[in-house]
């Protein structure tokens, strides 16, 4: 410290710049809440609430979602062989359909659960529990995402096997995962900014519109899909997955003052 001379009765020690900066840094470090990693946040909730609690009351929605997704992929797989024989760009068009279908399980389960919670009027109750509703919703989204990745992987393998041709499975996986994480990212952004019921409609409508446009220009889009290297599609998928997980962590840790109000 350097003393100042003009204090009555002698010199008063006064902190210099380095000491002031160190004090401010210590106050900020102790005062700011520690940033929790996504995996720690998830583990804390799962340890406390239990895995079964995460989908309490909505297991039938999960089952229905899985059943519906199985039907969608089943249709794709069943029609793959016939589809592939129709024209030369069939592989690319099949990939367009897979791109559109990949987020189905994720979104369908998400929608069914939101409808169920609103129909049973349980949302207000969950919002006042100690574990924040955002955190519970985020862990559910992770679970839907994991289930969708599994479903999409199985779907790609089955479609490839039944198509009668050697389809590039890795490229198909990349396209499928990229679609899933792109959709999930978009849905997260919509949930953070729009109130129900708009939040339920925006992404599916936008997805269908984009799908319609892609199908309308399927000659060009199919060609691009067919030429897409596996490394590129998987790389894009990985980047979107990282973006989704980052957005999910932010969603989970949004401060209470910035959360949407419950329906009044």
């Amino acid at each position, binding site marked *: 410290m350097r003393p100042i001379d003009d204090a009555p009765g002698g010199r008063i020690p006064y902190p210099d710049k380095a000491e002031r900066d160190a004090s401010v840094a210590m106050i900020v470090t102790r005062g700011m809440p520690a940033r929790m990693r996504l995996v720690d946040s998830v583990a804390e909730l799962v340890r*406390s*609430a*239990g895995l079964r*609690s995460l989908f*309490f*009351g909505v297991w039938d929605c999960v089952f229905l979602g899985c059943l519906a997704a199985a039907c969608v992929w089943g249709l794709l797989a069943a029609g793959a062989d016939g589809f592939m024989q129709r024209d030369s760009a069939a592989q690319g068009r099949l990939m367009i359909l897979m791109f559109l279908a990949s987020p189905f399980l994720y979104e369908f389960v998400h929608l069914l659960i939101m409808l169920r*919670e609103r129909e*049973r*009027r*349980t*949302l*207000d*109750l*969950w*919002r*006042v*529990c*100690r*574990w*924040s509703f955002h955190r*519970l919703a985020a862990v559910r989204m992770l679970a839907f995402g994991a289930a969708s990745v599994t479903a999409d992987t199985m779907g790609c393998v089955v479609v490839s096997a039944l198509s009668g041709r050697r389809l590039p499975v890795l490229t198909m996986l990349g396209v499928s995962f990229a679609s899933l994480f792109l959709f999930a990212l978009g849905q997260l952004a919509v949930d953070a900014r729009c109130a129900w019921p708009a939040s339920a409609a925006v992404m599916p409508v936008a997805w269908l519109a984009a799908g319609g446009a892609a199908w309308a220009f399927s000659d060009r889009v199919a060609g691009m899909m067919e030429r897409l290297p596996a490394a590129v599609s998987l790389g894009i998928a990985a980047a979107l997955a990282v973006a989704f997980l980052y957005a999910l962590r932010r969603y989970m840790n949004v*401060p*209470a*003052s910035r959360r949407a*109000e*419950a329906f*009044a």
Partner: protein
Amino acid sequence: MLTVEHVTKTFSGTTVLRDVNLTFEQGVYGLLAPNGAGKSTLMKMLATLLFPTDGSIRWNGEDIIAMDDRYRGLLGYLPQEFGYYPNYTPRQFLRYIAALQGVRRARADKRIEKLLGLVGLADAADKKMKTFSGGMIQRVGIAQALIAEPQLLILDEPTAGLDPKERVRFRNIIHDLAADRIVILSTHIVSDLETIAGKIIMLKNAQVLRCDTPATICGELEGHVWEVPGGMPLGDGRKLLSEVQYGTETRQRIYSPAPLAAADAITPVVPNLEDAFLMIYGE
């Protein structure tokens, strides 16, 4: 201690609550007002479901929104429309709530047994809630609000739809609970509060009109409430509060600013909270 400091709430340009100032300490507080007066809005702000447009709500000096999960951990809330899953039993449902409240399983199970006994559902603990009456569902709602041993209990219209026997049972439960916590309950059923509320908060025109004990509120009408024959003309300044049936005879319960002339059929009566409610909110 819970304090509401200069809280205003506006929805799409309409002010539902304006400059509300309240302090809550241990005991039962009754929020009494007609439908649409802002009771549920205030209750939801206390439960952090809604945020004040202006002002703040503090728990022991700390803003409840900034407290986040620390505040929710000490709060028990029963919403006006209590949602539940019909295909689950009360035990399963309460276990789920306990898990979301961060109560460990072993402790939660003991607590659930005790609460189900308290609300009279011990025999129905493992029956599906779709077989329950409205009163039984409401009792599950009260039990879930108590699962984490809250210091603050917020009950929004807890007796709506309950029969008289259920309402008496509810009052007895609340009376026992208020010994060591803050209980805030909102209702438009006056009789629910008369015997259990230590203080009554009345809302009118988006503001707090009164915050006083039932005795003080009723005491202001002392000497001004009379029972008179049905059909008797009221005269200037007098107000009909309600009609009372005694067998085949109908009598009117009226407010009179000045004492009435004594007569056989005109009797002064002790004013009750319903009289005060009708005086304040009647047209």
